[in-house]
């Protein structure tokens, strides 16, 4: 088809070609398209004049606004820091009870704590600090290293078995090979008896377990099994368990040993943030108490 047909519907001519029944009209490009091109290209031109845009050999056009994203971020961060400086200094200077007593600061903790705790702590310790298998509860009274504010602040700063030079270090050894499997079960029964868990209460067995406990466990967990916060050794005589107090879990714990791990937050969270978290733990504990 070389003759240019006219499309009866639109009145436009075809280009005179045909492919497998398909023809094309030679319609002019609508004016709106040219306007559209003009506007979008003007937008680009203006942006190139105002902003950093085109590279040269060693440098690039800076744009007459002199904007650079790095400077912008630094400025924004500086402004934000400035706006928070007052209360953050107070947060560092005051102790936990003073912060809780100050309505303005307490409100900031209530507003900031959930997101701070949610983004940094909740993945292991749970949304409300309730803990879970392998991760201690932060809302009970059982503390591995002590629950007073200064100790908590220090734990947050250096972490546990973390890569911080001052990190807290705690390791429970694996007794596989040191104690026989029956001995492990025996001492496990004794440990269960300390916290009143129902188990094999045969007096002879408990006596044997106590001897094993004194020889192998008491140096860290104490003669009475109440633990030692200087060593991060948990209290075995209460009803709080990190990994579990059932036969199988205790057996695994003693056989394989345990080594918990908590990151050091110094360098990631500043002192004000760590203080907010410390105060917020009290809020969480109150929350639990009222439930």
């Amino acid at each position, binding site marked *: *088809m070389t003759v240019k047909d006219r*499309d009866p*519907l*639109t009145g436009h001519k*075809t*280009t005179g*070609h045909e*492919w*497998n*029944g*398909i*023809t*094309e*009209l*030679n*319609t*002019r*490009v*609508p004016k709106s*398209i040219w306007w*559209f*091109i003009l506007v*979008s*290209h003007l*937008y*680009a031109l203006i*942006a*190139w004049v105002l*902003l*950093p*845009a*085109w*590279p040269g050999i060693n440098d*690039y*056009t800076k*744009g007459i606004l002199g*904007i*650079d*994203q*790095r400077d912008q971020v630094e400025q924004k961060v500086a402004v*934000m820091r400035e*706006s*928070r400086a007052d*209360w953050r200094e107070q947060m560092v200077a005051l102790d936990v009870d003073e912060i809780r007593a100050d309505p303005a600061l307490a*409100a*900031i903790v209530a*507003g*900031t704590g*959930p*997101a*701070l*705790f*949610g*983004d940094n702590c*909740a993945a292991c310790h749970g*949304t409300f600090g309730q803990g879970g298998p392998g991760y201690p509860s932060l809302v009970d009274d059982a503390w591995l290293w002590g629950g007073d504010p200064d100790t908590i602040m220090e734990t947050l700063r250096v972490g546990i078995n973390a890569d911080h030079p001052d990190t807290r270090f705690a390791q429970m050894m694996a007794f596989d090979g040191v104690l026989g499997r029956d001995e492990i079960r025996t001492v496990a029964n004794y440990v269960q008896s300390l916290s009143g868990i129902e188990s094999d209460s045969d007096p002879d067995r408990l006596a044997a377990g106590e001897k094993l406990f004194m020889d192998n466990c008491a140096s860290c967990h104490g003669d009475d099994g109440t633990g030692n916060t200087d060593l991060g050794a948990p209290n075995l005589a209460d009803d709080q368990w990190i990994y579990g107090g059932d036969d199988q879990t205790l057996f695994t714990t003693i056989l394989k040993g345990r080594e918990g791990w908590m990151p050091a937050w110094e360098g990631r969270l500043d002192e004000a943030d760590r203080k907010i978290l410390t105060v917020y733990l009290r809020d969480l504990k109150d929350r639990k108490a009222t439930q």
Partner: protein
Amino acid sequence: MAAKLTFAERQVALLILVVIALVGLAMAALGAGDAMGVHGFIVLIASLGLIFVLGASLDAPAPTEDRSREYYDDPIKVGIVLAMVWAVIGMGVGDWVAWMLAYPDLRFDAAWSSFGRMRPVHTTGIIFGFGGNALIATSMHVMQRTSRARLAGQIAPWFVLLGYNLFVVLAVTGYVMGVTQSKEYAEAEWYADIWLVIVWVAYFALYIRTLARRNEPHIYVANWYYLAFILVVAVLHIVNNLAVPASFTAAKSYSLFSGVQDAMTQWWYGHNAVAFFLTAGFLGMLYYYLPKRAQRPIYSYRLSILSFWGIVFFYIWVGSHHLHYTALPHWVQTLGMTFSVMLLVPSWASAGNALMTLNGAWHKVRDDATLRFMFVAAVFYGLSTFEGSFMAIRPVNSLSHYTDWTVGHVHAGAMGWVALITFGAIYAATPIIWRRETMYSWKLVEWHFWLALAGTVIYIFAMWNSGIVQGLMWRTYNEAGTLQYSFMDTVEAMHPYYIARAIGGLLFLIGAIIGFYNIWMTARDVRGEVHTLDHPTGSEAGEPAVPVAE
């Protein structure tokens, strides 16, 4: 398949297959203990299977008819079926991971089923499996018809189609085993990438050689787009996958690029995969099947030229808009942003050209679900290109980036544009290729259309809501100037939208399964067999072809 080859061609095909089988054997032996060994067995089994198929008819009589008098449609048939197989796999996995995001336990605690492995199975299955097979099949169809010439070569089309599918299988099975380059949409490892280069060069040669023997003085627009797709994807694939294998007997490799250069190369590739794979190729489809089905002339040839050159010129610049507010220098981001905005005009010009072409055929859009697929695809193409340019503007991007809005945007393109135009094209092509009067059931096409449209709309509305909620929650500060929400709060807020998204995906998947059934039944249904005048020809009157030298 083999019955239509001459004895000499069968021998060549056999030789190629034996070489591939030997490569597979070497990979299996040397890569034992690594994922490469498993891939070696896959290559070996695939090539032995084909050797078996070929060998079964090795002694069959050679074809007596003049093959140049008819189009070579057998590879197209297989390509359409493979496209639908991958559609069901890719969409099935996609919907599974969509449910998994709402209910993480659906992972069933296996390593292979983790989101990080299943997600690339979904994206590769859809983009390369479904989209790629549809592009190869329709490009062979369109090229032959608009050139009035038979495909150049008897073995090459099979090599391209089956070789390409071998690549997709190697890619997808690799992800399941944990093999990945960690480059989005280019996760497959080095040996699979090398294989794709070989296949792709064969594809390019096939296309150019067929075009060279055309019986039309001019090259139709659809072929410009298909050619741009084939050529640029080759360049993108080769550059982005430049890597040094850690060992020649294992899958692991290290990219030639590092740091921000690596990121920029990746997104130059990534966005141009959108541009030249998911846009240019499918515009080729649109430019043939839509006017053909509507029986209307293309609205404006001049607009076709403007949009083609606009798209291929502007798209190649815009990849940096994926890296706004990162370590990428500010000036590169400005260029990406401004070129993205300029790109909108040629994109809309193609969508407009398609929609204006439907003037005078709107009653067909109403009555014919196949044409309606293509109409809605053009609308979604316009919508998602507008959205893309909008999201490329830096301040907008600061809200949308890393949120589900991006996921919604990409699915407006992938479901609304790419999949719908593909379904329209396949429904248009299937009766022609199998020489049937119509599809097996037009009602099922209607069902597919409404399920696909409903699924797409539910999906993108869910993700718009989810993404904007997420983006706003991330940047909400309280009075003290600290963050209002933790990340987990935002995840909880997205949960209902995730369920809605998974339901939308499920509707879309059901539609695709219905479509597959309909295509299968059309192929099997010999009742409707018709013989229309559809063959290569050098004469204006449609006389059978003057055979062009094979």
